[in-house]
């Protein structure tokens, strides 16, 4: 039986342990909106432990997801796909669309159009018999 789900879950548990330490430290030295101790005031004291807790939860959830997924065979996957050009076109479209955020909205629309053509190509390649 394969137990690869244990490893991300265990890593998440270790992160949870670390975040518990940070929550504890923050709670002990916290008073209201700011946590002041010696000469240091921690701004938004919940933010740092919350970030770590989110990662811990994510890793545990990944472990659970792996547990639910059936591990596949190592063999038999196609080493190459005819969808390569369409994938590249989709990525170029995505980059152009994102660049619109810096250059102008018109570029975002151009990028979306290019990405749509690429996606259509990927779908066509998937439906093509091999």
């Amino acid at each position: 039986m394969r137990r690869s789900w244990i490893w991300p879950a265990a890593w998440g548990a270790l992160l949870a342990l670390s975040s518990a330490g940070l929550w504890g430290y923050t709670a002990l030295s916290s008073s209201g909106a700011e946590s002041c101790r010696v000469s240091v005031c921690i701004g938004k004291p919940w933010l740092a432990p919350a970030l770590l807790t989110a990662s811990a939860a994510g890793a545990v959830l990944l472990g659970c997801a792996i547990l639910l997924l059936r591990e596949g065979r190592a063999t038999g996957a196609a080493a190459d796909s005819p969808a390569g050009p369409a994938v590249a076109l989709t990525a170029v479209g995505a980059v152009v669309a994102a660049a619109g955020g810096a250059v102008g909205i018109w570029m975002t629309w151009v990028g979306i159009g290019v990405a749509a053509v690429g996606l259509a190509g990927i779908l066509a390649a998937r439906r093509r018999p091999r």
Partner: protein
Amino acid sequence: MTTAAVEPRAGERAPLGALSTDHKAVAIRLGWLCGAFFLAGGVLALLVRSELAVPGMQIVSHQGYDQLFTMHGSTMVYLVVQPLAVALGVYLVPLQIGAANLIAPRTALFAVWILAGGGALMYLGFLTHDGAGSAGWTAFLPLSSDRFVQGSGMDMWIVGVALANLAVIILAAVVLLTILLRRAPGMTMLRLSPFCWTQVVTCLMVVFAFPAVIAAMGLVYADRHFGAHVDPIWYLQLFWYYGHPAVYVMFFPFVGCVAEVIPALSRKRFFGYRPFVLSLMVFTTLSMSVWGHHLFTTGRSANEYFAATSTALAIVAGVEYFDLIATMWGGSLLLRTPLLFAVAFLLQFLIGGLTGVIVASPPLDYSLNDTYFVVAHFHYTLFAGSMFGLFAGVYFWFPKVTGVQLREGLGQIHFWLLVAGTNLTFMPMFVLGYDGMVRRVADYPSDAGFTGMNELATAGSGVIAASMLVFLANVAVSLRWRRAAGDDPWEGHSLEWATTSPPPPGNFDRLPPIRSSTPALDLRRAGPA
């Protein structure tokens, strides 16, 4: 000898072209892309060092200098070392776990193009009226707001950084899921190669820490375009929540390279495999828990907690060093170029690691923060560490990837030049920082006593550039006048050495039995069937 059959599908013998989704082609393309960015980032570094060689402004303006060091740091972190760290996994992981390809090869190909586009966008900023991004690779707020950095070049930098990191997240997720879900029969998690284990922990960190930098870029964008007036502490927390794990993302895969090179070229099995795996798990947990030390001097961080976790890193790092040294101990060392780079990696990174303990102490960090001491520290970890580990891997696996050996003589010249150049460049920076020279300045007073050390550092950067030219010449000569390497020139231990060099599409015609973390070594010791 029993072997398990691998069944490549009919019609699978596609060439490794520019748009191929074979993991080897994807990784090689990624390698070339990062190599091109490395050359660009290196030229920027030479310009920075040339400007700093002597007091006064000789080459660029102050604004131009800001763009140079920003783009140098951004290129090396976002476009070179981070993606290279995962690119190694894209090439080697399927081979080492006995898989025919990645679990999602098209997604990996998509990520490579996203990375290329993101990098191009960052560099296109140089063509805009106000130039490229110039707020440092960290783009701290409020420095990166439109009050201090105007123009669309900075916006292009923000979008480019977000895209580059998105690409690395996608690649890491694909590599991680491939390891977790696509291992060959017999390849349990505790039979993974040390390199694969470093990829597991690296990818976990990428997947669970790197989204923070995309959020941070979103904050800068919102501040610049929507008047969000983001609290700088929010930005600092988010950025460094990504930024410090990123340092280890740029370290562990190269530890993995060294952990493959040392046993093979010491003719010994890896010492302390299980403690190594455990230390990786704990090390990466701590790596995720130290980011607050970047906020020591803000007076807004849990200093005691982050000082404790940062200092504790030395313990788990010690376990890994012990394993690697003990593997060499009593071995029959084959002192070829990969092993030279591996040993130098241990020594050079040690300087970076030990000076890290110094800046992990808040009272010392108050004094050294934002000085050249920090610049020297992180270049010893990121350049002297990562690059030496990377080159150990490049010399080790070049025969596997291409079927030919790199020239040993040129390799040794490359190695010794790089050792000399690295220490000549970065060791004087410790002195400069200790003497109070602050980072991110284009000029310094002529009577400050900084000139001599800056001249040394600039000379060293020239030596590094020369070493890279030797490496490029080695690659060109070796590929032009090919000397066949054979399938297993180093008598390697992990599974990739049990297939042809270069491997065929589908990777294996037949898989050997997998009964340990060293299946290729087991196969060789079992003898011919």
